[in-house]
C-alpha cells in the first residue's frame, strides 16, 4: 500500500534525473561475461568527466600505484570492471544529488553510505562471494530513499527528524509524515531507473526483517552493514536509535555474534583506504 504511495511520489517528481546513457551502457557491459577492457574503454572515454574521475581515483592513495597512470585503458584494467561500474553508478547518484542546499547534510549522508559500502565489502569477502563489488553497491545505495527525501521532500524530512529526535520510531514517523518509508521510496526510484532487481530488493527491505527469499543474503549483508555503521556513529543517522537487525539477517550475512568486533575493525581499516575515494567525490 505504502509501496504504491512511494511509486506515486516518485512519478510526481518532474525533475528526477534520468540515468545517463553511458551509465546504462557500462552496467550492461559489466553484466556480460564476454566484455573486454576495450569495450569498457570505448564507452568511458565518451564521458570526459567520468574518465577524469577514473584516472584521479587510480592515481590516488586509495590504489597506491607507484607510477602515475595516464592511460584510461590502463586505469580501467587496474580498477576492474565492477569498480568502474560502481564509480559510474555512484557518480550518477552523487552528481544528481549533491547540488542544492544543505551540502553538509549530504556529506554526512555519503559518509554513512560509503561506510556501509565498506561494511558490505568486508562481509562479502568473508562470505567469499564471487563479486564483492556487487555488495559494495548495495551498501552505497541502500539509503537512496533518504537522498530523494533530502532533495525533494526537505520539509517532510525535517519533520521526520524532529519526530525521531523526540523518541519516535523512524519507520512510524516516515509513514505518518510522507505516507511511505525511505526504503519504499528508494526502491521506487531504483525501479524507475531500472536498477538491477537485487539493488531494488536491498533498498526495499534493509533493516526491515522482510524481503524475497532469493535476495536474503544481499538484504542481510546490507542490513548488518547499516547497523554496524550506525553503531560506530559514522556519518549521518548517528542521532537516531540503531535499527534492530533480526537474527535471520545476521545469519544470512554469515555473521556470528563473536565476529562482530573483528568485522568492525576491518570496516574501519577499509574506511581509511576509502578516504581518497571520498575526497575525489567532494572535489
Amino acid at each position, binding site marked *: 500500500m505504502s509501496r504504491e504511495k512511494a511509486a506515486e511520489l516518485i512519478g510526481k517528481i518532474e525533475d528526477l534525473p534520468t540515468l545517463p546513457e553511458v551509465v546504462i551502457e557500462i552496467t550492461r557491459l559489466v553484466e556480460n561475461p564476454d566484455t573486454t577492457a576495450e569495450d569498457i574503454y570505448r564507452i568511458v572515454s565518451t564521458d570526459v568527466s567520468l574518465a577524469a574521475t577514473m584516472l584521479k581515483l587510480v592515481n590516488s*592513495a586509495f590504489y597506491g600505484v607507484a607510477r602515475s597512470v595516464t592511460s584510461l585503458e590502463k586505469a580501467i584494467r587496474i580498477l576492474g570492471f565492477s569498480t568502474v561500474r560502481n564509480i559510474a553508478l555512484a557518480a550518477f547518484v552523487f552528481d544528481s544529488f549533491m547540488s542544492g542546499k544543505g551540502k553538509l547534510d549530504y556529506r554526512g549522508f555519503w559518509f554513512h553510505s560509503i561506510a556501509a559500502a565498506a561494511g558490505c565489502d568486508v562481509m562479502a569477502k568473508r562470505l567469499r562471494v564471487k563479486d564483492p563489488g556487487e555488495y559494495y553497491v548495495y551498501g552505497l545505495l541502500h539509503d537512496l530513499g533518504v537522498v530523494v527525501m533530502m532533495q525533494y521532500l526537505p520539509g517532510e524530512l525535517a519533520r521526520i527528524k524532529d519526530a525521531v529526535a523526540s523518541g519516535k520510531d523512524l519507520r512510524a514517523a516516515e509513514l505518518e509524515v510522507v505516507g511511505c518509508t525511505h526504503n519504499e521510496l528508494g526502491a521506487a526510484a531504483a525501479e524507475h531507473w531500472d536498477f538491477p532487481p537485487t539493488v531494488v530488493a536491498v533498498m526495499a527491505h534493509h533493516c526491515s526483517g522482510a524481503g524475497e527469499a532469493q535476495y536474503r543474503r544481499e538484504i542481510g549483508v546490507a542490513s548488518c552493514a547499516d547497523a554496524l555503521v550506525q*553503531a560506530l*556513529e559514522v556519518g549521518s543517522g548517528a542521532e537516531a536509535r*540503531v535499527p534492530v*537487525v533480526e537474527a535471520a539477517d545476521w545469519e544470512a550475512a554469515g555473521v556470528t555474534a563473536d565476529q*562482530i568486533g573483528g568485522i*568492525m575493525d576491518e570496516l574501519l581499516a577499509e574506511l581509511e583506504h576509502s*578516504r581518497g575515494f571520498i575526497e575525489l567525490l567532494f572535489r
Partner: protein
Amino acid sequence: MKSVKVKGLKAGFVLARDVEDAAGYKLLKEGTVLSDAHVALLRSWKIPEVWVEESVRARGEPEAPKAGHAAGGDEKKREDALLEEGRSRLRRRFEGRLTNPWMKALYAEAEKRLLVPRFWRQARP
C-alpha cells in the same frame, strides 16, 4: 611557531600548520583553535606532535602551558568526560534494541570503539 607534543597540548592552542596523517591526508587545518575534542582526536589519531602559534588564543587559557607538565590530570579528566558522553549516547541509541545476541554484541563492540579516528564522523551540532 613552535612544535608541541600532543601529550602536552591543551584547548586554546592555534595550529600553525595543517595536521596530516602519515599518508598525507589533511586531518585539521592551519588556524584551527584547538578544542578539548580536537585534542582528544589528535591523541586517538596517534599524532605525536603538532606545530602551533606561539601565543594561545583566549578560551580561559591565557598562556601556553609548559608542554608535558601539569596539564596531564586535567586532560585525562576531559578524555574521560568525552568517553562518558559517548557511552551514554550509545546507551540511549540502543535502548530497547538488544533483542538478540548479535545486537548485544554490536552494542558491546561499538562501546569499545568510541574513540576511533573520526574523519568520517559528521560534525555534530
